[in-house]
């Protein structure tokens, strides 16, 4: 614990701002029902109110409070992205570590499958599969997790292959340790730093990907508050921005608020990832 505190104290300003941003989002996501002044999907006022009390960020086309929907969006969008990333990691890291440790036909076949999956652009592949499965949150999570696990597989396999050439692995094998023991006690602890950094990067990718699909109307479906979907719903408003008074000018910001919320979180995660990579330096540029 002391060690962690010590490392944190040495963290640069960029990493601290990243931590602050993520902390803010975490609080919003966890305490959404307490913080949001209005419910997520209920229409609580006239439509298209400007920014004034009691609707500090106005209302949308159905008279729902934009501020409340932004706060609930933190919970929905980030929650689904986090679940997807976790699933992608579970799948990708397990397969990657197994492929590296087992070698042989399992390694060869899984590497070929991943090559083919990665040859098709992820967005195109996701659209193809979503056509078949239809758009539901569960389908979304599984499709993106499987597509994204290919990259985790590549990284964890490469890292594990490097570790497996070490002498202590040879010793453990001669001692007669089993496969799981080898992966759990020898490979995983040594592969932790690059995998943690990769988790951050993958989260950003998944988060942007889900937002993009929601923006296209193929991701998280209304009335669930979700940032990508909110950009889509409020996109037309931008044309009504009028810069004569600040309250009419805020219409121009309607799609930028949720889009900015997405951008800010991604920046926060990237700042921390940069710092983690810098500390475990030499793994990535």
């Amino acid at each position, binding site marked *: 614990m002391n060690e962690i505190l010590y490392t944190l104290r040495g963290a640069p300003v960029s990493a601290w701002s990243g931590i602050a941003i993520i902390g803010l989002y975490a609080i919003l996501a966890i305490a959404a029902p307490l913080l949001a002044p209005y419910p997520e999907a209920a229409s609580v006022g006239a439509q298209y109110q400007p920014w004034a009390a009691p609707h500090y960020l106005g209302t949308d086309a159905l008279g729902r409070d934009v501020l409340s929907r932004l706060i609930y969006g933190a919970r929905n969008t980030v929650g689904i992205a986090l679940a997807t990333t976790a699933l992608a990691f579970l799948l990708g890291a397990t397969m990657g570590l197994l492929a590296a440790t087992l070698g042989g036909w399992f390694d060869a076949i899984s590497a070929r499958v991943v*090559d*083919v999956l990665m*040859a*098709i*652009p992820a*967005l*195109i*592949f996701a*659209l*193809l*599969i*979503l*056509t*078949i499965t*239809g*758009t539901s949150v569960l389908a979304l999570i599984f499709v993106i997790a499987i597509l994204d696990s290919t990259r985790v597989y590549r990284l964890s396999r490469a890292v594990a292959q490097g570790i497996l050439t070490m002498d202590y692995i040879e010793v453990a094998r001669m001692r007669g340790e089993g496969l799981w023991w080898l992966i759990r006690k020898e490979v995983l602890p040594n592969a932790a730093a690059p995998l943690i950094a990769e988790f951050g990067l993958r989260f*950003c990718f998944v988060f*942007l990907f889900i*937002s*993009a699909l929601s*923006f*296209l*109307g*193929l991701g998280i479906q209304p009335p669930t508050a979700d940032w*990508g979907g909110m*950009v889509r719903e409020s*996109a037309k408003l*931008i*044309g009504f*921005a009028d*810069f004569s008074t600040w309250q009419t000018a805020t219409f*121009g*910001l309607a*799609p*930028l608020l949720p*889009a*900015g919320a*997405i*951008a800010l979180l*991604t*920046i926060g995660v*990237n*700042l921390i990832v*940069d710092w983690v990579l810098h500390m475990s330096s030499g793994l990535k*540029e």
Partner: protein
Amino acid sequence: MRTILSIILKRLLVGCMTLFVVTIIIFGAIEMLPGDIATEVLGQAATEESLNAFREKYDLNRSLPARYLSWLGGAITGDFGISLANQRPISELIGQRAANTFFLAGYAAAIAVPIAVVSGMLAALYNGSVFDRMLSSSTLAAISFPEFFIAYILILIFSVALGWFPSLANVDPGTGLGERLYLTFLPAMTLTLIVLAYMMRMTRAAILNLLALPYIEMAHLKGMKRWRVIAVHALPNALAPIINVIALNLAYLIVGVVLVEVVFVYPGLGQILVDAVSNRDVTVVQAACLIFAATYILLNLAADILSIIANPRLLHPR
């Protein structure tokens, strides 16, 4: 020369194999639809005759490999079959739109590539300067901002506030080139901003790697001028990685275009793909996916082959 030819041939073969497997996956998608397509589309109440007529029309009575071969043959000659949703020939629906998409991607590339290569080289030359640091922070923005965020910022500034460019890119086949370039300026700028930072960053890294090598130091020590060291000694060796960077980003552009088209309501392939996915119009999705995936794979293949050719070391085998 023989080694380089065999390397290229091998890479070509792998590329063709990938393309082949990808066509199988895309074709297989229609088979994975739950239930029978004919009843799915026509509904449970459809009569036996109409079901049979439907199967006849979509060629569903033949075996899977036979249908795959005729689909592939059609796709190569530009005939993608008939749309499930509106029964029109797909080539008619997507022909002009595919051309529009490639136009937009090409336009963005024509702006982005020269800027990226020149400023990437400058950043490498003045490593650690203010310009260089500005470049690294812009990379952070580029990887963090969703495409539509950049697009709406541009719309708000250049279309709504200043009124210089239209926010909707309404082009039709009759639009002249000048008009077309003007109408698609904002979408092209959005795409440019998305790929620019990556390309600059990768160009910079490629050149910085080279500048650390002993032969560059030797050239400096000989008293050669700085620009001459870069142009004559570093650049030929940096060509391979830079070409690779450009082709990879072009491949990325082809996919990034989907979102940008939706934002600007641009009549392109991405827009029709998104519509087809929400209507579950599988045959159109297949055709659009095939075009996107094939372009992506071919650009990646081109990147590999060009960087093999541009690598001076492979031209003189020991």
